[in-house]
């Protein structure tokens, strides 16, 4: 049973436009959500997070939105750059339990 779902395996966006990556979860006890970016031959790199007491967190070009009622999380990247091309993993956990990862979405930013 997948608790964290990334239903789009891939996404292509033109350089300069907005990239929106989506994530849905089923466990209403999750209280901390993270996005990781992964390049080939490297480990996942922490990008941005949000706790369940917030609905938005922004860091530069990256914004994460949390809709608790819909159990939905999204990552907005604007403007998108070719260097953003990577696999993006959504992850979540509830207190004192391990991280649960989604299957990832491959973002391709086309110049």
């Amino acid at each position, binding site marked *: 049973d997948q608790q964290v779902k990334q239903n789009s395996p891939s996404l292509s966006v033109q350089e300069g436009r907005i990239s929106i990556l989506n994530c849905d979860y089923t466990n209403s006890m999750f209280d*901390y959500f*993270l996005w*990781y970016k992964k390049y080939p*031959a*490297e*480990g*996942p*790199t*922490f990008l941005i*997070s949000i*706790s369940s*007491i917030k609905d938005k967190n922004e860091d530069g070009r990256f914004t994460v939105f949390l809709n608790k009622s819909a159990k939905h999380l999204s990552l907005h990247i604007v403007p998108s750059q070719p260097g953003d091309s990577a696999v993006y*993993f959504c992850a979540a*956990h*509830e*207190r*004192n*339990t*391990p*991280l649960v*990862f*989604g*299957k*990832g979405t491959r973002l391709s930013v086309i110049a």
Partner: protein
Amino acid sequence: DTEVTQTPKHLVMGMTNKKSLKCEQHMGHRAMYWYKQKAKKPPELMFVYSYEKLSINESVPSRFSPECPNSSLLNLHLHALQPEDSALYLCASSRQTSYSRSNQPQHFGDGTRLSIL
């Protein structure tokens, strides 16, 4: 540059070999993790160490044996592995495992790409 260092980057071993994967962090983190990642799949948790003690073992076969000699080091000893154990092995660390209200993301190393012949 990652603050979690894993060695070696690549390892090829036979099914009868014994080898070890090493992980080091100097961020003062007290929680360390081993994950296994197969191609096009998310990382799967194997072990969690908290304050140098094993706190979670996700039903990992005994041919994988973790060790935490001190708060900065985490090893994964491998013996009699099977071809299906070929994967990317990722180490991660975080300030602690209590996942308190503060922001405590896990930081990953670049992994060891393991191939079992």
